[in-house]
């Protein structure tokens, strides 16, 4: 199989969709410049023409609304937001319009739209150039939200998002762009809402998405050196998310760490942890650990960034806490039994 980078995989999904379906077009800021999209849209304007690869004025709201209207009128637009922070200016067409349309009009009109948002953080860029806002959109009924972590998923989920009759928020992270992996040449789609078990293990389940799914694999290798066999689940989709795969794993391991590249309060990890408690409380040996950003805006100095962004080390620590707690819980259970 071929090896592609995450960014190249995104580009290939675009190119194949544009070649296959004349209804597909891309609109947003920075499409003609490598500065905004890295290599993820490299040369698409030359290949497909600037009528279909439309570098737009700085009008997030109207450009996104235009994409919603074009989708309603039969096109298959991909609207591009090179920084998710700026996409908040388009909250109305995304949240009020696209997400509600199917429901409001009794299922008679759908919005086949891809909203692509890039998380572009670190590098001392500060709080308005760094935000991972997936949880805000995961909250909204009617939207689908995907966050691929690998080149393979980056392509397959984008294909699925374009094929989906609903508005799909596709979120990619610049930190993943250089990552390489096997990517089939032909177009393929990954069902939205299906997680991937990246590694089998019996002791603890490490659940994550996007950059944190990548960190989970490194954490699992570190935990193995401690004699702990971690099962690693990459959620891939946040809305809908794969409850069956996650719950089956937690039933097996009895312990879970949910890692999220976003904030803690009302975040993705919190929502998923709550659902696991609802469904699998009696299977748990220990409280669910959450690894998230602290409830603070992104800092803008290197030293503070290192303290702010969690990674492999924080996941390992959380997993060890869960394992420790499970030991004391099983000891309490044993002493309770012997007392009886």
């Amino acid at each position, binding site marked *: 199989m071929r090896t592609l980078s995450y960014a190249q995989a995104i580009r290939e999904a675009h190119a194949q969709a544009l070649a296959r379906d004349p209804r597909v077009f891309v609109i947003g800021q920075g499409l003609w410049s490598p500065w905004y999209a890295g290599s993820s849209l490299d040369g698409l304007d030359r290949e497909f023409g600037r009528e279909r690869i439309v570098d737009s004025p700085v009008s997030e709201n109207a450009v996104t609304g235009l994409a919603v209207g074009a989708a309603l009128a039969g*096109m298959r637009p991909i609207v591009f937001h090179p920084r998710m922070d700026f996409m908040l200016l388009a909250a109305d*067409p995304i949240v009020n319009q696209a997400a509600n349309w199917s429901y409001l009009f009794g299922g008679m009109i759908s919005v086949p739209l891809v909203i692509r948002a890039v998380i572009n953080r670190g590098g001392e860029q500060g709080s308005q150039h760094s935000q991972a806002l997936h949880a805000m959109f995961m909250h909204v009924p009617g939207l689908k939200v995907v966050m691929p972590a690998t080149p393979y998923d980056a392509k397959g989920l984008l294909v699925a998002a374009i094929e989906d009759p609903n508005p799909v928020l596709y979120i990619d992270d610049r930190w993943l762009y250089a990552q390489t992996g096997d990517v089939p040449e032909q177009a393929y789609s990954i069902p939205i809402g299906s997680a991937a078990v990246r590694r089998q293990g019996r002791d603890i389940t490490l659940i994550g998405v996007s950059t944190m799914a990548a960190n989970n694999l490194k954490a699992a290798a570190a935990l193995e050196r401690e004699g702990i066999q971690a099962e690693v689940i990459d959620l891939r989709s946040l809305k809908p998310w794969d409850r069956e795969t996650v719950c089956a794993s937690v039933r097996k391991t009895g312990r879970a760490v949910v890692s999220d590249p976003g904030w803690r309060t009302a975040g993705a990890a919190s929502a998923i942890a709550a659902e696991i408690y609802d469904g699998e409380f009696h299977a748990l040996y220990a409280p669910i650990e959450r690894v998230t950003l602290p409830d603070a805006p992104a800092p803008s100095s290197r030293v503070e960034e290192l303290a702010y962004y969690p990674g492999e080390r924080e996941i390992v620590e959380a997993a060890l806490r869960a394992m420790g707690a499970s030991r004391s819980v099983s000891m309490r259970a044993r002493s309770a039994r012997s007392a009886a």
Partner: protein
Amino acid sequence: MNIDIRSSCLPPEDATAWLLERWSMMLLIRRAEEAIAAMVETAEALCPCHLSIGQEAVAAGVCAALTNSDTIWGGHRSHGHYLAKGGSLEMLFAEVLGRISGCSGGRGRSMHLASREMGILGTVPIVAGTVPLAAGAAFAARMRGGTDIAVAFFGDGAFEEGHVHESLNLAALYRLPVVFVCENNLYSSHLHWSERRVADRLDRAGEVHGVPGRRVDGNDAEAVYSAAAEGVARARRGEGPTLLECRTFRWRGHVGASWDADVGVERRGELAEWLKLDPIARTAGRLIALGVHDLEGREHAIMTRVGEALERARADELPGPDRVLQHVWAEAACGR
């Protein structure tokens, strides 16, 4: 490219028949909305209903320049746009009453009207929410080729939203086949325009973006039509967007059946002046001058049609509680 400008944009051949048709449409809108007003008063219609009584010439005039495959987009006050574009009267009543036979399955109610077949792709109460969407439909039409155009209906308050100005710029930049129709009824909810802006020149709002604008007597169906037809023809020729400011006045309050007294707005003097400019009476006067004398009989037929459609809608089924989770996501793409 060979562009067919279509007969709808040419001066009507039989002026009397055309005018009669516009008069009938305006009267249909008014009688339908009066029926809705009555249901608001008796609490039979509980959803928020925003009536366009007094403004009927805008919907009837603009839509006369459109074909079925053109799309229109509207706001909270769009019963008239829906009917004028060919939406079913019975399905409008059913929608207002929340019946599953309504044009939006009883989900949208008065503020969310659609008919894919007639090119009514949606109305929403978020102010100016559909203005960029109309530009998007025009973008789609331009990509597909052909001569379809899109019309955005919105009020004067919409110009206080930034994305209207963004949309004007995008439409000009991409030469989109769209006509922006501002129904300036002087009030945004309870606030007069002078409490919201210092300049009374909304027709010029597109100028810096390269969108030509025109001010029109919005209570004159013929004037509205001829201005709209010009903008529509321009759009069909691929020459880009046009903005129309149609000056008009809503007789009733912002929402519901009242005449505004209940929200502390004193418009009685103004209203008396605008009642004299009733668009339906003006068109009727023109028809009588043209020798049409059976307007009463025609009005009676319209009243009967409204009454019968309402009775059929009332008899339709209401949704059950099991429907709450349906259609959050579409199973398959459905649209144009």
